[in-house]
């Protein structure tokens, strides 16, 4: 059986419930948000260790703050990661399922190492919550970094294996004709690409620090010298990490097959130009990093988004090479469930305004001060949730009665 025949025959028999381009856009969008959070967690872990080693008062305070960022960020990163994981299985199912089955053991090990990373980061955060200047211990942060890097390596490997389908057979079938069912394959690591995901962690963390300093600048109980220290550390880190990210990008670019002409990909060009603008802006922002934090964050997110688009474009090159395109995936359009998702998604954005407003206002308030949240936002969030339930439960009862499945 030809590889292309295999890949196309392994598409799910049910087809897609909506147009592939929609899933593709959702995949790229949710991946961009997910990877920003992943970068923040990884970068914060490294920086927390560094700040502990400096044994300064500001360093201690900052590493404690980063301890909380790591734990909360990791939770959010995992939840955000569910969406791209879902959408990749919808349109790239033959690649995803084959690569993951070939490396089943490592796919499951990913869960083990990320759990260990999680609890190590909690060990660092909770273990140092009450420790004062000079007493902080970084050993759990080291452990967390180790497991986070392993997590990155495993996920990178699983992604890369999907791009090399022409090698799959040779990995598990010996010359004597034996087929391996061990699920222990570990191939296709590309250090340039992996670094291009890891190094931006420092840039994202740097920009986060700039935002942190800007956000808390209105609070009187925050020492302005400390915030200045954090903002400058952030701007410095973001600048140098951006430069190194560009360098690792060139390394990765050199490993991509020439016939893809990937350097001409419009998304890559936009992403690269944005990356250069961001780097220049960070250089200029060094003197007043707090004031330029928001613009730097917007520029950085746009860069990451366009680079994610470029990454998707690259994936399509690899897959076109073996005769696979998502655009001719058979369709069985299902409007009711599509409407359910998009209506819920829009509702969810409204509901999220409430916790976002609460967090934003509470964070800006001085210690001991109780802030009041706009009652309309509060009330409407709850009403929206209840309305969702009433509509779907009503729909369910009607359908169940019609189909005779209720009693």
């Amino acid at each position: 059986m030809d590889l292309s025949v295999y890949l196309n025959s392994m598409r799910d028999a049910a087809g897609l419930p909506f147009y592939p381009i929609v899933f593709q856009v959702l995949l790229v969008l949710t991946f961009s948000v997910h990877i920003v959070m992943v970068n923040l967690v990884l970068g914060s872990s490294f920086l927390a260790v560094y700040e502990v080693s400096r044994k300064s008062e500001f360093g201690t305070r900052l590493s404690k703050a980063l301890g909380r960022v790591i734990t909360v960020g990791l939770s959010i990163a995992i939840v955000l990661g569910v969406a791209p994981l879902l959408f990749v299985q919808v349109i790239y199912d033959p690649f995803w399922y084959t690569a993951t089955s070939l490396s089943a053991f490592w796919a499951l090990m990913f869960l083990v190492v990320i759990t260990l990373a999680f609890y190590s980061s909690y060990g660092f955060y909770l273990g140092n919550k009450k420790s004062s200047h000079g007493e902080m211990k970084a050993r759990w942060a080291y452990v967390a970094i180790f497991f986070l890097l392993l997590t990155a390596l495993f996920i990178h490997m699983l992604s890369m294996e999907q791009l090399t389908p022409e090698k799959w057979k040779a990995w598990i079938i010996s010359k004597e004709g034996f087929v391996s069912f061990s699920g222990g394959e570990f191939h296709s690591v590309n250090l340039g690409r992996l670094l291009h995901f890891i190094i931006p962690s420092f840039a994202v963390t740097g920009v986060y620090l700039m935002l942190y300093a800007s956000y808390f600048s209105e609070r009187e109980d925050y020492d302005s010298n400390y915030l200045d220290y954090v903002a400058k550390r952030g701007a410095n880190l973001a600048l140098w990490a951006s430069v190194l990210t560009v360098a690792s990008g060139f390394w990765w670019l050199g490993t991509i097959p020439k016939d893809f002409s990937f350097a001409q990909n419009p998304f890559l060009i936009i992403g690269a130009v944005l990356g250069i603008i961001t780097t220049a802006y960070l250089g200029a922002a060094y003197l007043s990093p707090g004031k330029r934090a928001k613009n730097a964050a917007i520029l950085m997110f746009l860069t990451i988004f366009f680079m994610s688009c470029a990454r998707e474009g690259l994936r399509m090159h690899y897959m076109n090479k073996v005769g696979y395109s998502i655009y001719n995936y058979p369709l069985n359009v299902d409007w009711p469930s599509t409407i359910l998702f998009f209506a819920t998604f829009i509702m969810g954005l409204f509901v999220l305004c409430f916790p976002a407003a609460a967090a934003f206002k509470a964070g800006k308030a001085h210690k001991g001060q109780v802030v009041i949240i706009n009652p309309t936002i509060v009330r409407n969030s709850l009403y929206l949730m209840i309305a969702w339930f009433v509509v779907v439960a009503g729909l369910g009862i009607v359908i169940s009665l019609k189909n005779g499945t209720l009693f």
Partner: protein
Amino acid sequence: MYPFWEVPFFTSGLVIALVATFHILPCHLATGAFWFNVYVERKAFYEKRPELLEFLKKYSLLILIFCFVIGSLSGVGIWYAATVASPRGISALIHNYVWGWATEWVFFIIEIATIYVYYYTLGRIDEKSHLTLGWVYAWAAWISMIIITGILAFMLSSGKWVETGGFFDGFFNETYWPQLFTRTALMFGIAGAYAVIVASTLKNKEVRLELVRTASIWGIGGMVLGAIFTFWYLFKLPEHAKDLAFGGTLPYLKSMLYVAAICYGVVLLWFVIFGLIRPSLSRPVIGIIILFILFAGIGAGEGFREGARRPYIIDRYMYGNQIIAYNIPAKNIKAEVPKFQKEGFWPNLYFKPDNLDLSKTKDRLLAGSVIVHHQCGNCHALDRLGKIRPLSVLLENLAPESPGDIADFLDALGDYPYMPPFAGNDKDKEAAAEYLFSIVRR
């Protein structure tokens, strides 16, 4: 077919079962806990009792550290485990229910945003807003259960979906409502158990006794209602599943129900004695032991659900070995068994050695190994020392004297109500039979 992943001795199916069972503890806590939390917070707010806040903080922290670490990861874990153990099965679910899962994801985001803000803003935002945050979380978490139950129930009873292919026709199937009610009741039971454990650690004795008793009442309510709804659930099972479980075909399913009932009975008794009658005797360590018993009960209940849908992984649509069993004209899906019986299973495989000569015994054994792994390996251990439905032992009981005897047995597979038919032609059968004969324990 996708490459097969073999778990020595235990089968890959057991990996999913373990991860899924474990996931239920944190996920039902995540869905049920905040109904109790907002109940306690309401008391603290309206009755002006700030001493109750210690419980809120501790209980919320437990949810954060347990549910949003182990719960989230084991949830993703089920996906990964299903991906590597039954890729076509999870693919079928995802391609029919992607928007359902995506909708659930929206509620996950709401959950995680509200739980963190709830925990970190206690005492920092006005009481009414904080209480509403708790309500929003509680609704979001329960709605995520409302959604996932539809997909789980679909695997057991696919409803009108096999005729229409419609999302909601499969979602609101025969066992949807009873499963939702049972799981909802159980979530209060689980949340009650954790609440008793957390309440047992409180310093203020009066509050401790009061909350242990209150949480126990919630727990008792959950367990009793759960038992009542379980009868509805069993009543609504597809006829085929009822035959397997109660018609004597698979007696182990009944035993699993008994195990689940005994475990839940023990938990109920614990609520009554250590919560309601003598709350002063409640200790965290006993509570943790109770959690293990609960875990065993859940495992047995889930084992029953999985066993009762045999031979399918998705009711009527897909067999446990990931071969499509049913024509769904509405989706242009064709059953695969007739195709494989006509064209052969071996020629339709990609991951196989290309240069085998099936007229040679050695090559037939190699081919047979691949065919058997795909068609039997999801449910049966293939090693000689296998522990889960080991084929070497099961075949030994048939005392085959030649591969031909096993080929005859393969021919009759479809007659067993819990087994899929052999999906292949005579050549496939011959190769499979020779391989199976080679692994029979003698």
